[in-house]
């Protein structure tokens, strides 16, 4: 089965026709920039936690950066678990046509 892996995205197979414009987002450099901007935004959000006076109901919501850690860890786990689920649940595209 053909596997258009994600590494390909960063290698950027050049399927652009001759003379087609290279946009800002097509450059690998800029994709890296976006990533680092995201890191900075996340750090800033964490820092803002220190200034925030919280009124939330549950104690754990007052922990430093709870929502950030929770969002990161569970999203990570979600993807890793789903990937493992593929081993059990994934079949060929024509599974129900056979």
């Amino acid at each position, binding site marked *: 089965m053909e596997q*258009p892996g994600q590494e390909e995205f960063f290698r950027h197979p050049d399927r652009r026709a001759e003379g087609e414009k290279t946009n800002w987002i097509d450059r690998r450099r800029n994709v890296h920039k976006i990533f680092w901007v995201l890191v900075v935004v996340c750090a800033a959000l964490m820092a803002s936690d220190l200034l925030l006076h919280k009124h939330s109901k549950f104690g754990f919501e007052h922990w430093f950066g709870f929502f*950030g850690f929770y969002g990161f*860890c569970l999203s990570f786990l979600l993807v890793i678990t789903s990937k493992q689920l593929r081993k059990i649940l994934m079949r060929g595209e024509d599974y129900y046509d056979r």
Partner: protein
Amino acid sequence: MIASIPPGLIMILGAVLVPFLPARVRGAYMLALPILGLWQLLMLDMGSFGQMTLFGYELMHVRVDKLSFIFGVIFYIAAIVGVIYALHTNDKMEQTSATAYMGAAIGAAFAGDLITLFIYWELTAITSVFVVWAGRTQHAYRAGFRYLIVQVTSGVLLLAGAVMHAQETGSFAFDFIGIDSTGGWLILAAFGIKCAFPLLHNWLQDAYPESSPTGTVFLSAFTTKLAVYALARGYPGTEMLIWIGITMTAFPIFYAVIENDLRRVLAYSLNNQLGFMVAGVGIGTELAINGAASHAFAHILYKALLFMSMGAVLHRTGTAKGSELGGLYRTMPWTAGFCIVGSASISAFPLFSGFVTKTMILTAAASEGYLIPYLVLLFASAGVFHHSGIKIPFFAFFAHDSGMRPKEAPANMLVAMFLTAALCIGIGVYPDPLYAILPYEVTYIPYTTEHVISDLQLLMFSALAFAVLQRTGLYPPELRSTVLDFDWSYRRLAPAVVGWAFKDGGQIWAALIGGLQRILRGIIQAVFHLHGPDGVMARTQEIGRSALVITVLLVIFLVAFYV
């Protein structure tokens, strides 16, 4: 006069004319129907009308109150944008059935009694299956049949439950039902099927992605949200619904991560969003019911917008599969932009519609002290951002370049997407008009620093997780595949068991019967040997010998007695 027409009827009756109109005016006519309907709804006063008597029971055809009103309004808006989105099509079957379907769903939302509800409920089932079939593929045809069986089952359960409920309470009125009676359970099951409760959910992911690009937009708005309305009417504060709801939010997102067909991914995320509403209904406080109703309102818009953008991609490229797409932003920038607005809305980014509605449900869960539901809903919020917020636009419009250079979506699709996107942002930026039509008075303030910061932390760190997984190559690539879900049990397991029972099962049955027969024959032979002619027990004896035996016995008896 206009005030005495049941809402929805304009569209149901109007649908009859649709196939007879020439293509040029058909679109304008179809657009006029929901606009007229919405105008009529806005004219209506709160209250009930259309009283009838059936077998001694009072029926109330129409009941307009704040809960039915908000669903009526959003159903009409969804109909208007849906029709605009489909203006370029010329499929009479889809156009006629979709018009009647939307009318039936609106009628059901205003049903004052369970019999009227049942009639509209079944009408949505029967009309919508033609919208599925309008996909006009083998897959759509077969998925349509499965869809129809499930939907009709829901109707049958509703009718049975309604009759039992009426016997228990003496009324068919559609008010609070609860789960204290058998009738209540049956009706809950009927609503649960249409609301895609866990294990009853697969008709949704099965049928919706098989419909045409325009058909899915129609389908996505009505059936499931009608069920949410019905739950909010009949079962508010039923605690079991909290647990069902959170299961619905969490379980489909795992599938959404690995599913390849992007419209099926959207169907899974639709299921996940329904979970938030069901949990809100289960919590049942004023804030939670407001949250469920407003989230349904916002959800219909952004989900339609997402299905519209993927429909446009399908319309232009012929596929909606993540493994085939990528890089479409170059030639479909508007569609990509509208898709991102839909993604931001479903992910509940501040200033987009999901934020001002979903956070109500989360706040209600926290303020009632539901710890585990609250944590699961937070997890599901991060998860939905992952697959609907990032995966959908990323794999369709960016990611690896597929080399496809399709034309931008047709003008009418762009107009529909623009209007829907404008509403998504409008509600997010200025939620007061939406809050004003909610069932209960709103004291909730969405834009507090704390709400915004915690929401952004959750979302941005979830985005960071996606970026890290991408950069390390851990993110599962989009693969051409089928992912087995619960429908496997009735599409593969059950037919296999039945087939086996008829084929191999027959031989085992014969062997079993053969064995039993042998044992029986043995018993009969033994009995025949003893009791048959010439058998030991059946031999004739001479009288003299009998007399001798009796005499001997008598002697033994006498001797024994005197000794």
